[in-house]
């Protein structure tokens, strides 16, 4: 048995699944359940607070609160929710690596998180550059577009995340060539 994970992703997932910690989590009576519960609470804290900031940017909530105050006073809670969500999410993945890696929903979720991450970067690096001019007032179209993308992307992350639990597109079910392409199932099966 090799000391480290193999260099291809499918092999790495198999290696991960064979780790004692992964097996223990997978077979645990309560640990997995509590981690999943904490994951939902992390999402509630994270998406709940980011949605409030987005609603302010859209101009439909908290009209009296400056955007800078939302950033300074609410976003730290968003970050705390994100950390809880990522840590528990990583543990959930660690418990069931092979199936999660090939899950169509998991892949869609990661893609949406990437979209959301780029959106956050663009917002803070570009859209917010002239924030002083609209901090306490009506937000410009760019900020509204950022907020809308954020709301849609994170809502999509919640929906696709919930769907990971359902096995419609699992590798062990007959799938179209297109689904196989998206899930990488055939590549996985081709491994010795």
């Amino acid at each position, binding site marked *: 048995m090799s000391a480290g994970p193999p260099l291809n992703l499918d092999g790495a997932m198999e290696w991960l699944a064979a780790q004692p910690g992964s097996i223990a989590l997978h077979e645990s009576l309560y640990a997995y*359940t509590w981690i*999943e*519960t904490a994951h*939902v*609470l992390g*999402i*509630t*804290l994270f*998406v*709940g*607070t*980011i*949605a*409030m900031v987005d*609603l302010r940017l859209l101009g439909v*909530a*908290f*009209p*009296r*609160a*400056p955007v800078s*105050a*939302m950033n300074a*006073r*609410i976003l730290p*809670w968003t970050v705390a929710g994100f950390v809880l969500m990522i840590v528990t999410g990583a543990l959930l993945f660690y418990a069931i690596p092979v199936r999660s890696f090939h899950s169509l929903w998991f892949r869609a979720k990661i893609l949406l998180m990437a979209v959301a991450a780029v959106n956050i970067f663009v917002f803070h690096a570009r859209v917010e550059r002239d924030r002083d001019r609209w901090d306490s007032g009506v937000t410009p179209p760019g900020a509204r577009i950022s907020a809308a993308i954020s709301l849609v992307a*994170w*809502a999509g992350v*919640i*929906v696709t995340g*919930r*769907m990971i639990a*359902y096995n*419609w597109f699992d590798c062990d079910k007959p799938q179209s060539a297109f689904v196989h392409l998206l899930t990488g199932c055939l590549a996985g099966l081709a491994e010795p």
Partner: protein
Amino acid sequence: MSLYHQFEALEATSLGDAIKNSLWLFPAIEAVHLLALAMLGGAVLMLDLRLLGLGLTGQPASTLERETRPWLIGALAVMVITGSLLGVSEALKLYDKRAFWVKMIALACALVFTFAIKGPLARRDPGAVGKAAALVSLALWLTVAIAGRWIGFS
């Protein structure tokens, strides 16, 4: 008619039947239930954090109570509707689940506390009493959320 038989009758309705026998209806409703949970969490936190002296301290609690109320009520409405649809489709399973009854009792307490005690209190911009109310509110809603997630585990 006993409560058990009422649950049985609920599950036998065409609505319960349709959701139970559909491949995607239950997951889709469940996803909307979760989206509303995030919105509810956000709306509750905005006010509770402020009552604790955290969050948007530049805004009076009374302002935040008024400005979060439509989002809170909207999210609650979606949660109750989707939750009822999910519940009708598996009413008998719920009847035997302790987590379901814990959730319903906590939910009743959270609703009464939020609208009869915390809301009126927040409108008067309270001090230390507001902190206590925020802690009770967070504890009640956390119980609802955790018990809700545990309904799914058997």
